[in-house]
């Protein structure tokens, strides 16, 4: 097997390893919600308020990054037939490393102490660079045939650049430099939100939306947009460091708007709109669309509008927490079901996934998350008064998801015992 890609989907990492990356996510979300509810609200809703910066990194790095790395460990072998090198050794440390780095940064921003930044910049970023390098290495071997594989082939570089720029910023803060180059900051955010988050989500959505929600497949021309639609403007952004001013921000935002419009077009024509998580995808794509529209209209909007806060909430909560919640609600019951199916004798009937995770509960969780998103967007009206309810609502929605996933795990243990025992009983009776 030299020239052709190795067929590796039978070598996908053990579910346990992927669980380790996915399951802590809702509980980090709970922590972020509580931090908003009870943290120091001074300066909110300014995007540079210490609490805003802590929350952004807790969400992006602590909650979302481990899920996305776990997803890539699984997607690279399944979608592209390429296993991630060393995934078995890297995966167990991913969540811990992400949460640790996010906590160090949050402490750095909240207390203004250089120590947190030094930990994050000198230890966290290099350690997180390891899975990023492994994903780059695996991507190198991916044969790009559609939007998802195009994304998989090139996504590692976006994470690596985001970490590199973030590590650099943290080091500058850690060395006591108050405000590093604004361009560096913008470029870090652009690679993080556009190069990594939006590109990854678009690539994943191109496969999972037709799969689970039966949306029409993206047109062939649109499949070719990834990842260059966003990578080219972001790369041009690098020239700003050399003094060459180009409209790369507007180009990237227009790219995000185009991807969101394509996604919306598909989601609105989905055949399985009755699925509880469909609404999450619809709102996620609307959020990205609003990010693009508000970002592009920025210069024409009243200066007192809290655009920074809105863009952050729309991209990270609306655009990322929502689809991550949607996917966790699909993937975890599926992996558990598959695991039960493999462990139990073929003649034992495994109850359907919906009995592991009841749609009515899932619907309630979706409603709570959308309510939290609304409260977060409304926060600038009365920041001091609304931080508590908005934070609590968000924490509650994520505790709801965490609780549901735990209940899936609990049902798994009970079913395995009862069905396994029943199967043994049957075979003994037959003897």
């Amino acid at each position, binding site marked *: *097997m030299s020239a052709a890609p190795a067929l590796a*989907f*039978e070598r996908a990492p053990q579910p346990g390893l992927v669980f380790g990356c996915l399951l802590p996510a809702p509980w980090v979300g709970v922590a972020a919600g509580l931090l908003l509810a009870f943290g120091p609200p001074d300066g909110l809703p300014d995007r540079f308020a210490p609490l805003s910066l802590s929350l952004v990194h807790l969400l992006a790095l602590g909650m979302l990054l481990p899920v996305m790395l776990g997803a890539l460990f699984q997607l690279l072998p399944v979608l592209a037939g390429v296993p991630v090198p060393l995934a078995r050794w890297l995966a167990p440390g991913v969540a811990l490393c992400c949460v640790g780095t996010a906590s160090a940064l949050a402490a750095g921003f909240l207390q203004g102490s250089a120590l947190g930044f030094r930990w994050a910049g000198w230890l966290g970023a290099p350690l997180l660079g390891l899975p990023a390098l492994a994903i780059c290495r695996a991507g190198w071997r991916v044969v790009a045939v559609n939007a998802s594989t195009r994304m998989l082939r090139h996504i590692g570089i976006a994470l690596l650049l985001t970490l590199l720029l973030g590590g650099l910023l943290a080091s500058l803060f850690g060395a006591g430099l108050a405000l590093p180059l604004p361009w560096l900051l913008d470029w870090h955010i652009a690679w993080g939100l556009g190069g990594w988050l939006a590109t990854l989500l678009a690539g994943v959505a191109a496969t999972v939306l037709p799969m689970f929600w039966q949306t029409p497949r993206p047109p062939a021309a649109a499949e070719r947009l990834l990842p260059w639609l966003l990578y080219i403007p972001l790369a041009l952004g690098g020239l700003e460091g050399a003094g060459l001013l180009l409209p790369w921000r507007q180009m990237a935002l227009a790219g995000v708007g185009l991807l969101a419009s394509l996604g919306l077009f598909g989601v609105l024509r989905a*055949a399985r709109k009755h699925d509880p998580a469909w609404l999450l995808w619809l709102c996620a794509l609307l959020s990205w669309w609003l990010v693009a529209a508000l970002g592009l209209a920025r210069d024409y909007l009243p200066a007192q509008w809290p655009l920074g806060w809105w863009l952050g909430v729309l991209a990270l909560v609306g655009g990322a927490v929502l689809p991550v919640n949607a996917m966790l609600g699909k993937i975890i019951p599926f992996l558990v079901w598959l695991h039960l199916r493999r462990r139990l004798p073929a003649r034992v009937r495994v109850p*359907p*996934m*919906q009995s592991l995770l009841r749609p009515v509960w899932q619907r309630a969780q979706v409603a709570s998350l959308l309510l939290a998103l609304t409260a977060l967007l409304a926060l600038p009206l009365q920041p001091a008064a609304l931080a508590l309810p908005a934070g609590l609502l968000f924490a509650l929605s994520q505790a709801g998801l965490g609780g549901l996933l735990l209940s899936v795990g609990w049902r798994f243990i009970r079913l395995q015992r009862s069905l396994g025992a029943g199967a043994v009983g049957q075979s003994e009776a037959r003897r």
Partner: protein
Amino acid sequence: MSDPIATLIHQHHEADALLARVEGALRGDDWPLAQRCFDEAEQSLLGHFELEEQQLFPAFEAATGMRHGPTAVMRDEHATMRDLLDSCRMQLIAADRDGLLAELDTLLVLIQQHNVKEENVLYPMCALRVADLATLLARSGQPA
């Protein structure tokens, strides 16, 4: 038959659409339509599994020498999906709407994760390694 891989993928989409129609019919409480679409979906899926197991997989195994690799995983998953089709059939006979919707939901997820592996990895490999794929698949009498 111009592109045998496109035909196989088309068969996937056809079964998807039929199963989505079963769900739609059940939501509208149209049992005769649900029954009809389920019959068609079952027939389409079983025919497709057979084509893969009888023609495609053996040819891939012969060409690559891999007998216990990906095709073994695919055969296993076909068996699981056949069991799920039986479970659906039982719920259909019992006219248990929620039970059938739940079984269909599981079947759909399983089919999708199976198809994506075939479409992204196994089929392109077959196109690369199996000589004269078009004739091979046409031999089983599947429509072009």
